Structure formats: C-alpha cells, structure tokens
C-alpha cells in the first residue's frame, strides 16, 4: 500500500500543470457557449464545443486523456497507471479544463467497438465519440423487459442490404441529443432467448424513428421512449456476429456497472449535505451542532469512505490485472443505497423547508438538495434494479444457486 506521490509523480503533476497553464486559459474557461450548471456540478467539464474538442486533441496528444485507447483510433495509448490518472483528473478539475467525455459513448460503446467492432467501425466512430462530436444513446431497455434483456422484442428483419427495425425502446438517456444509438435488436426469432439478439448501431436521423421524452419526478427529461417503425439500418451496421449481441453487450454492461458504482456522485451530495448542515440554522442553532445530525453524518461518511476507498482498491486490482471479485460486484448497490440515505439526511437537515421546490429563495440551498434526492432514484434504477444486483452478488459473488425458473 502506497498512497504517496513519489518524486517522479510530483514531476508528472508539474508537467500536467504546465500543459494546462499553456493550453487552457482564463479566456477558454469563460468561453463555454452553453454552460449547464447542473452538468458542471457533476464535477468535470463536459462541454463539447469546437474549442473544447481542439483542447482535447492536444491533451490526447500529450498523453493525458483516453489513455487506454490506441493512438490509431484517437486515444493516448499510455500504460495503465492509476496514480497518473488520478493526478490528471485532479489537475484538470483544478484548471476547469475539459476532461474525458463521460456518458455512454466513450464509457460503453468505445470499449465494445475496441473489443468487437470492425476496423472500419473503429475508425469511423471512436475518435469523434471521444471528442464529443458524436453523442450516443443506449437502446437496451424495453417496456416489459427492463433488466431482463433476454426478453427483448424490438425486431430486425433482413431486407436486402438493410435491417428493417420495428419496436420500442424505453429509459433511453439523452435520446433527444444523441446522433447515434447502440441497440440490442432481436434478429433471429426462432433462436433461444439469449441467442438471436444482434448489437446494432443506428443513426438517429433515419426515417421512422420517433423520440418521446419521459418526464421524471424532478421535472427533468433525462429519459425517453424511442419508437421504430420500419427503420432501415445498413446490413453492415452491426457489432460482432449476427445473433451474438448478448455476449457483445456484456462488456458494455460491465463498464456501466463500474460507471454507476463510482462514488464520486455520492461524495458530491455528501459534501453538499455537510455544507447544508453547517449553514442551516434550525431552532436557533446550526444543524451541524445537533448530536443526532452529527451521528448520522459520520455514519454516512463511514459508508462513503468505504465506497471511495473500495473504488481505489478496484483501481489497484485493475492496474495489477487481478480479479476484484465480490468487491466489484457490490459497488453499485452499496453506492446507490448511500445516495438515498445521504439525500434523506439532507431533507431532514432542511427540516420543514425541505418541502420547497428547487429555486424557491427561502428553501435551504434554494432547494438544491431536492435534486440529488430525486436523482438517487434514477441512479438506483440505472444499471439494473437493486434486486437484480442482489441476485448477481448472491450468485456470482457468494456462489448461491440461480433462482428457480418456473
């Protein structure tokens, strides 16, 4: 165990800092054409305007972004080094410079293309995806399917050089802004449930696609329903073999779990809640001075630290090429439960003002805590409902038998 930075790493940090000073100025920081406070609050700069893309290209060339992606597909192709990765993240945040694009394209599609895509697909999609020029949405869930991907019904029928796609996807994040979707489509109706599904790349501009936003409890519309009516997708626009989409998608699902299990968002709402406790005066004293609030805060902080440090452990096992085993399987459920409990404490700290909606001036933090409270639910649902996680932990982690199939 070594959490300290050796001289070599201190030099690396200086190098990153010098790069940032030279390439991302105050003017750049102020140049965001469409600043989004909610997204910015997620902690890293996600803008994808031309200036940001230009900077990202420089940062990739310097070896700082997309370090695991080969140079020939637009990545930095650097040896795995979690300490360097941490330094880069810290310094980019400090400089408010565009970091790696989060979201489903870079984190889910790109690993899949690198593992299973054709050379042509990699050349066409990887770099623009990494630079934020192509945004992706995921077409997995369907009404009546949810976590049970084997029961998907959206169908593709080969018609000459094209697949004719019909059906419906739901819980699709960012469908309205996405240029492309990676989707699971049933193409071999006679095959057993897990077979017969094909991993398909679909241009969202294709005629016959309709996107209907689903409004969420917090009033936002992160999710949509997507309807396909005789949508024509080129025959070559599939990843991996026809009918093998189930196994192709599993690398992506693994990436999704890691993304959602990340404790960063839990840290953010914990810090917000702690600040709320320090600022909110309830019944004549600061909430932080209340023994019950202190007890709950430190209890939650223990769980948060466990999540964060477990994340370091996973990074380490990953860097060493070891199997993280159960410590990886539990991460998502552990963190999503934590989101809720932190947000609930924030509501309690807000006392009776907790019922005011975001933006109401007399709400503590202008009701900002209402947002994470709601967001918990989205996060708890994303990446498989908690009971599916429990099955995975029990079966793959503890070696318990699979559920009876009726």
């Amino acid at each position: 165990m070594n959490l300290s930075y050796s001289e070599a790493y201190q030099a690396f940090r200086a190098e990153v800092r010098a790069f940032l000073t030279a390439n991302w100025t105050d003017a750049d920081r102020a140049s965001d054409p469409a600043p989004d406070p909610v997204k910015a609050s997620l902690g890293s700069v996600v803008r994808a305007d031309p200036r940001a893309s230009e900077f990202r290209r420089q940062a990739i060339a310097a070896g700082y972004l997309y370090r695991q992606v080969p140079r020939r597909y637009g990545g930095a192709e650097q040896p795995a080094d979690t300490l360097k990765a941490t330094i880069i993240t810290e310094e980019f945040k400090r400089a408010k410079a565009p970091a790696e694009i989060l979201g489903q394209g870079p984190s889910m599609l790109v690993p899949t293309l690198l593992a299973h895509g054709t050379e042509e697909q990699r050349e066409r999609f990887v770099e623009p995806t990494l630079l934020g020029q192509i945004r992706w949405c995921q077409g997995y869930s369907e009404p009546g399917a949810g976590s049970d991907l084997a029961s998907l019904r959206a169908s593709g029928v080969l018609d000459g050089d094209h697949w004719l796609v019909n059906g419906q996807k739901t819980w699709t994040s960012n469908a309205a802004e996405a240029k492309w979707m990676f989707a699971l489509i049933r193409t071999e109706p006679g095959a057993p449930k897990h077979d017969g599904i094909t991993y398909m790349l679909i241009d969202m501009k294709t005629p016959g696609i309709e996107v209907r936003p689903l409004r969420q409890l917090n009033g936002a519309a992160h999710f949509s329903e997507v309807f396909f009516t005789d949508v024509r997708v080129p025959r070559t626009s599939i990843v991996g073999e026809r009918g093998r989409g189930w196994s192709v998608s599993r690398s992506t699902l693994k990436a999704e779990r890691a993304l959602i299990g990340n404790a960063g968002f839990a840290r953010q709402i914990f810090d917000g809640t702690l600040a709320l406790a320090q600022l909110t005066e309830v019944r004549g004293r600061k909430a932080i001075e209340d023994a019950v609030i202190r007890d709950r805060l430190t209890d939650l902080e223990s769980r948060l630290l466990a999540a964060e440090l477990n994340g370091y452990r996973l990074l380490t096992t990953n860097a060493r090429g070891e199997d993280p085993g159960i410590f990886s399987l539990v991460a998502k459920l552990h963190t999503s439960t934590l989101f809720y409990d932190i947000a609930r404490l924030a509501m309690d700290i807000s006392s009776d003002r907790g019922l005011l909606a975001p933006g109401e001036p007399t709400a503590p933090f202008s009701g900002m805590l209402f947002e994470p409270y709601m967001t918990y639910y989205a996060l708890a649902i994303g990446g498989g409902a908690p009971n599916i996680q429990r099955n995975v932990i029990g079966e793959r982690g503890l070696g318990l038998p699979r559920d009876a199939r009726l």
Partner: protein
Amino acid sequence: MDFGLSSEQTLLSDTVGRWTESECKSTRIRQIVESSDGHDRDLWASLGKIGVPGLLIPEVHGGAGLDVLDLALVAEQFGRGCVPGPFLGHAMATSALIAADHSQACARWLPPAATGEKILAFALGEEIGTWEPAQVGTSFHEGGLHGLKPLVAGAEIADALIVVARDSEGPGLWLVERDAPGLTTTPLSGSDGTRRVAALRFDGTPAQKIASGTSAAERARDLGLVLLAADAFGGAWRCLEMTRDYALTREQFGQTIAHFQGVKHQLADLTTALAPACSLWWYAAHALDQIPEQAPRHAALAKSHLTEIFDDTVRTSIELHGGIGFTFEYDLQLWFRRALFDRAYLGEARYHRERAATLAGWPA
C-alpha cells in the same frame, strides 16, 4: 374497552373512499397539480356536499360535530387518494376557532366554513423547524399584526386566517381576513402540488383577537400532526397496494415478479412496519377527543413515525417498479411528493421525537 372503529366511522371512511375513487382520479389530480393555485373549486364544493369541511364543527354552527378520529379517517382516505386542496389548513384553522370559542367569530365564520363556502387557513410556524405557539414572534401592536409566516398551508386561497401571534399579554390567536390591508401572500413552489404553501407577511394588518394563551393553537397543531400521520398511513398503504398490484402483473424472466421471494419479502417487511402503526394515529386522534393530556405526545410520536414509514414505503415502491416508478406519467410520483410534504410540514421526525422525549419528562 373497545379499540376499533364504530360502524358509523367505517361508513364515513368508506363514503370518503368511494368519493375519492369517483371524484378524484389521477387525471384530475394532475390537472390540479398543474393549475396555478392548486385549488379545484368544484372538487371542494363536492367535498362540501358530503360534509367534510364541517366535520369537526359543532352542529349549532352547521357542522357535523364529529370527533378528531372521524376527521383523521378522512385524512387517511385523502392520503390514500392523494386528494389535493386546502383540507389540512382548513381543518387546523376550524379546530383553532372552535377551541378559541370566541362567540362572535364562531358565529360569523364557522357556518360558512362548515359548508366549505369559506376556506380557512392556520398560520403558526415561523423560525425553521419550530411549531410551538409559545415561540412565535409575530406581534399585534399599534392596531395591527406585524411579522412573517413563511410556510402556511392553503394560505393563498383562504378567505380568513387564524394567526398565532402575541401582544403585551402574551401569545394568542388572531383572525385576519383575506382582503385585510397590509397582508401580503406569496405563493411558494413546493415539491408537493397537492398541498400548496405560501408565505404571509403582516405589516400592521388589522386583526381580531379571538383567544389568549396557547391551548387552542396547540390543539390545532396536534390535530395537524394527527392528520399528517393519517395521511401518511393512507398514502403508504396505497403505495404498497400499487406495488403489490404491479408485482402481480409485471413479468420478468418469464414470470410475474410477485413470484420472486425477494420482492415478496420486501413487501412483507413494508407491511409489517406499516400495519401496526395504524393504531398510533387512531390512538393520538382518540386522545385529542378523550384524553387531551396525552394528545401532544402521541400526536408527535404518530407524526414522526408514520411519515418516516411513508417515505420508506415510497422508496421501496419506486425501486420495485423500476424505471417506470420514476416518471411523471406513472401515478406513483404523486405519492412520492405527498410523502415529502407529510414528512416536512409541521416539523421533521427528529423534532417531534425530541418533543416527545421532553413531553415524557425525560431530563435533557
């Protein structure tokens, strides 16, 4: 000794339940939630026809003269049905007015309040998290009320307000009419669109003193706690049923999810926490009717316990629904917001548990 409902009470509960099912379907709730003032005059008039606004009001003033327990049974059904409107504030205010027993004010305001023709609201809390009549700062001097009530349920549409304030003699109750000069009402955007809140500002507002002391205000506060507890019980029970019904129809891996023992046990655990807690608000309501010295503590325990259970129930319900539970289109969100209100309004659970500890005489 009999700890159960009378046949009249069961009938009342069933009547209101049928009313919510027929008059207050979710499409109508959604319309009201999206309206500017959250008040549907027809809905309120329809409630007036079945006597809800005047349930507590003595028969001599045109009401039904029933008990708090009867009113709490209505609140349970309202929680179950997520009924929007000024019910809570009106009930607290009429209770305060009855307890104040000011003959002129009662004669003028109770008859129209009993029919629902006039709506009342109750203005108590000021400082964040504090709902003690003895601690208000709003004061009557130089012929008017001065002060701020930042969180008053149903205030925007109320025809008159019962305000807890103080003068040189100490705390008391004042009655303020809607169009009184120096009264500013600022509707607030709350997370629950079915119970609206507004801030009230008094700048020398003319007001009629209707009581001295804190007992009428405390009784109204305790009534509010019981009604929120009953609302939370009804809401939680409904969420449980919705989730049960969803589990019985939603298929996954070739069977309904109700077949999964994990789901069954989650629902059983929710039921186990919820069902016995019904008795808490029954008893607190009964205490307000018959054993007033026990009412403040039992109201505090009922409110803190039931509103936390409601929140737990909503949480698990949404988890078990999966993605659909998180959308506006699905009705569950109405109760999600209802639970937030029940939990926060009149003070959070931690506040009322500490109050209960103090009321028990435990040394602090």
